[in-house]
């Protein structure tokens, strides 16, 4: 899949796991994460 811009809504366990995996697999992918709270996942 040739994704150019991935938006992730939610920066906790699922969101950050996915963002990290996607970026690692495809470093050219632009990954943007939006999180409502002040913290990202603290255990991912």
């Amino acid at each position, binding site marked *: 899949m040739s*994704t150019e811009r991935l938006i*992730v809504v939610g920066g906790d*366990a699922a969101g950050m796991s996915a963002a990290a995996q996607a970026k690692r697999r495809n470093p050219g992918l632009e990954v943007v994460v939006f999180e*409502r709270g002040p913290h990202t996942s*603290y255990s991912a």
Partner: protein
Amino acid sequence: MEEIDSPRGRVRVRDLQNNRVVWESYDQLLLATGAVPVCPDLPGADAVEICGVNTLQSGIELRRILDDRNPKNGIVVGGGYIGLEMAEALVRRGMAVSLVSRSPEVMKTLDPDMGHLVSQALRDFGVTLYLEETLIGFETKSGKITGVVTDRRSLPADIVILGLGVRPNTELAAAAGIPLGERRSIRVNELMQTFVAGIWAAGDCAETFHLVSRKPYYLALGTIANRQGRVAGVNLGGGSATFPGVVGTAVTKICEVEVARTGLQESELRELGIEWASAVIRSRTKAGYLPGAGKITVKVLAEKGSGRLLGGQIVGMEGSAKRIDTLATALHAGFTVEEMINLDVGYAPPFSPVWDPVVIAAREAAKLV
């Protein structure tokens, strides 16, 4: 995020620091919006400061309230993971703690006979339990909470913590026409794609599949969120991964007592119309002659006739909970309890009796199926 515009491939987001609203376009969108605590619409509920402890921030706020006010009487409503862990935390601070639950025993993710062991552990720890009582409202005085009202009594409180479970945070997905499933979680396939092109979902907002009942299922647990997130991320990054589903494994610890469960429990089996036999055994966490050998109770449920393992529950001292992983693995493998008898699990006196407690329970269940 405030809106999903899937036809135009964009989302509306608000920067909460300056209140600026922008449309951001995407080629692929992953919804990982999680779950939100259930907050009851009851008299006085506006004054409740702690409705669910489900984010790092809510834990920080709770801790600040406790440190600032040093409350003496705490009431926890809800007998699940959050309720029990919060009750323990308040007792450890030296507070007088009561727990209110609608169920006959705490931990209704266990069968009542196993839940009873957990209720007893809480009482031994000094928590007063009000079971089979329904929350009907809160007492307040000039906007501050002063008590909890159940269908049977009024309980004075300086602080009230609600642990009434969560629901998937999917309103915006529903508004965008993304199909929902069990308990209004977002329906996904094995790749973690929703049924709208270019939109994916993972974690507490997404549906999963129960590998024992073979039905769609909703379960908000961080373990599942991590695995679903990984699968979504691999696929979004151009790789290939699938998420087959869950068997419903969860562990926790209340005071000194470890609690674990996996698979289907009696209430679920009844609903599914599956006939089962169950065996409950009591053993030790180490060889009985070793110092520190603690009590462990294991329950195994198996299908009548076929002997297929359906689920299991464990309550016991240190070294008990993670034994559930043997049962969880056996559920993934589709083992019968007969097949579990010869499992080559590890033994030495510091770790287990010669027959592992889980295997003893499987052996007993095999006699009953």
